[in-house]
């Protein structure tokens, strides 16, 4: 996996509390993102998927481990070198409306990123803004509007246009469709696939919505309590999940027209307190297959098939 575009080795970020304890939100993540793929990062609230995204681009400091972009570690970069990497690696926030300045017009918000990251002239910037605006399906008339004057779906398009104007290589999308109605969600997903093709992007798609991930990602990584417990190509992972957590997660997704989830047996209980992570396998307290070995030994992510790996002794 040396040809990965973006790679993490043992990456960790811990949030320290006032009383000295630490929430181990991301706790030893090894992940290799290949150029041109759409990698879904799925998991439930608090599993550390957003923290992973933010640690990847350096918004949050890595407490341990390394992030390698295009063959070189990026944590210790400073000044112009850091800025150059940051314009290639972009993060699209969950709530695009809140990420836009309410007192700036859309045009000014779009222009600002180019002022900071490029040396383009005013005319060139304006041309770039128009080009990306067209790519995300907005109209030039909307440049003079304020964020509150456009719909939630349009705000997300503006958020996308703002980062696309920098011609990034990797986009980290944090819950890009949460809070949208299904018909708007379908529009945004269609747009993301079109942009992925048009700009040759690599996408990291952070989401809790398994149905959405299945429909657009080429590969999936499942997170549980700060760790990746399973990775695999979308086709393999959804059809033949190997980790018991992935199995119970998939079993809980309603399938209109199919068997009802509420009639089935599935995962009981709630994820443990991230301040008090169980020894050994983190999932063992909720796992139907747990045995004594699971409390003693922390299972490592191991390859089970050419495209699939899981962190479970019994997978």
């Amino acid at each position, binding site marked *: 996996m040396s040809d990965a575009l973006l790679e993490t080795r043992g990456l960790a970020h811990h949030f320290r509390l006032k009383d000295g304890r630490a929430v181990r939100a991301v706790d030893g993540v090894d992940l290799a993102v290949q150029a041109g793929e759409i990698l879904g990062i799925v998991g*439930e609230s608090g599993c550390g998927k957003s923290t992973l995204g933010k640690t990847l681009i350096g918004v949050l400091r890595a407490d341990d481990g390394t992030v390698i972009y295009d063959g070189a570690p990026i944590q210790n970069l400073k000044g112009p070198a850091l800025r150059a990497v940051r314009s290639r690696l972009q993060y699209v926030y969950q709530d695009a409306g809140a990420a836009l300045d309410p007192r700036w017009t859309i045009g000014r918000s779009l222009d600002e990123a180019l002022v900071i990251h490029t040396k383009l002239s005013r005319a060139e910037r304006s041309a770039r803004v128009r080009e990306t605006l067209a790519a995300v399906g907005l109209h030039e008339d909307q440049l003079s509007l304020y964020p509150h004057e456009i719909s939630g779906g349009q705000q997300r398009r503006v958020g996308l246009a703002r980062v696309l104007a920098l011609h990034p290589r990797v986009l980290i999308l944090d819950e890009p469709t949460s809070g949208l109605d299904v018909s708007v969600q379908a529009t945004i997903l*269609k747009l993301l696939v079109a942009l992925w093709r048009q700009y040759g992007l690599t996408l990291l798609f952070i989401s809790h919505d398994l149905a959405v991930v*299945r429909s657009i990602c080429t590969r999936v990584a499942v997170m549980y309590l700060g760790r990746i417990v399973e990775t695999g190509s979308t086709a393999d992972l959804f059809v033949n999940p190997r980790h018991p957590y992935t199995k119970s*997660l998939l079993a809980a997704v*309603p399938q*209109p027209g199919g068997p*009802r*989830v*509420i009639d089935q047996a599935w995962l009981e209980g709630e994820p443990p307190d991230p301040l008090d992570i169980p020894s050994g396998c983190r999932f063992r307290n909720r796992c139907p297959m747990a045995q004594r070995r699971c409390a003693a030994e922390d299972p490592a992510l191991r390859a089970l098939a050419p495209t699939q790996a899981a962190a479970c002794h019994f997978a």
Partner: protein
Amino acid sequence: MTELLAVRDLVVNYHTQRGVVRALDGVSLSIGKGEVVGLVGESGCGKSTLARAILGVLPAPASEVKAASLSFGGENLLALASADIARRIRGRRITFIPQDPYGSLNPLFTIGQQMLDLMQWKSPLAIPARRGAWPALLTRYPAARRARDRAAILEMLEAVQIPNPEQALAKLPHELSGGQRQRIVIAMALLPQPELIIADEPTTALDVTIQAQILRLLHREVKRRQVSVLFTTHDLGTAWEICDRILVMYAGQEVEAAPTAAFFAAPRHPYTARLLQSLPRADGVAQDIPGEIPSLLSPPPGCRFHPRCAEASADCRTKRPPVTGSAHVVRCYHPLDAPGEAAA
């Protein structure tokens, strides 16, 4: 099945500074005893307005409510004084499960205090106060009734699978997880022994495994008690899980109503068909619906979906389509074929 709630041609207009918002345009709905009805639609379709109109909590005087009938258990809710609804019906015979339990529980009081406070007012043991009586805040809470209410609370917490109910009563809302808080508000909705529960997207904020647990719990408890539920949601998946029947709304109009299985097997309204096609699919990206939801300040005349509809004809642009069908009801001039139902 006996009819518990019957809404006929409900119209709700909001008078705002920008003009009249036509939030509901003649919506009809009926719920039988013990039936779970899903009210499905996208944001702004009028789900919450309909729920609030039934609860009688639309903001006065800005909202204007008209209906051919709005009857609940044989009583015409529109004819009752709002104080009378508050005393006898809301919180007793009709209760509510909010979307965000953290926003509806008081962060400064323990779960036990808040549940007892509810029971002081709304316990099935308490007789509704007479008109003009002292507010309950100023009256005694007899110790014997309090003890019986407390026992009922503990029993209910057991039913909604709260571990260690006694300990949970002493906790503050932030000390519980999101799933636990949702169990608490479900318990609070069931405690007054209502006939109808209005559940406003009760699982939207929850993770998928917790959502499955909460849906199973809610379904089991309401079926056991024969309580009717109006379950509003924008998520077709959760509607599939627990609803007996589904009513779809678009921009303030109801477009289709059918038993759940029939609805998902063969949607008849072009909007609902498109909505189902916009669900994410395993085999590639879903199809979207071109256009946007109209502004309710100046909604399109006729069928409000016509500007986005491929089937639209001259009639659709001027006249609201009539209701056709019996069990599977659709409001459309050009409904899609129904395999099981003869053309009306």
